């Protein structure tokens, strides 16, 4: 997902939807668009974590 950073491309802050044949790398390099910061990073896979401990803590004095 890209966001517009230059008025030459469109409204600042608006989502940029590249048309067919547009060179995204050149737009990024020139600072005309940027990667959207609102893009959520994919969640990592859930893994079971063994929280049991083999050692017991003696709380008695």
């Amino acid at each position, binding site marked *: 997902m890209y966001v517009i950073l230059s008025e*030459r491309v469109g409204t600042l802050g608006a989502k940029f939807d590249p*048309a*067919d*044949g*547009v*060179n995204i790398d050149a737009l990024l390099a020139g*600072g*005309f668009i940027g990667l959207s910061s609102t893009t959520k990073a994919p969640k990592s896979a859930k893994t079971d974590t063994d929280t049991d401990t083999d050692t017991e803590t003696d709380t008695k004095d």
Partner: protein
Amino acid sequence: MATTTLLSNPHVLINSVNMSDQCTAANFSIDYAQLTATAFGDVDNKYVKGLGDHSVTLSFYGSFAASETWATLNGLVGTTTTIIVSPEAPATPGTYSATNPGMTLTGTFLASLPVNFALGELNTMDVVFTGGVYSLDIS
């Protein structure tokens, strides 16, 4: 009288970047190879359309400021992009019409970026985009 006087209206979109305010000339050339189809018995030459070989020649003032000419063109050298030239800026971006067609070259190649410096003159950049698929956006 079918004439059009271009004062300041033509719109040039390079790689989705509006460069109209830096552009001083645009030559959009739609060309096809002319293949001979003349055969025995014909008394006149006949031709059919061959491969398209289109190009766009553009002249810009050579601003090196951010988001200006150099920033737009430098990253395109040796790559392909899309160019749209229209007689006027569309009222709604990306929306063209029969009276304001968007002449489009998709996948056109920029081979070089010559930068012209001359004493006492604004520096310029004259580029030629060649090849690509031509289409006319009138929707």
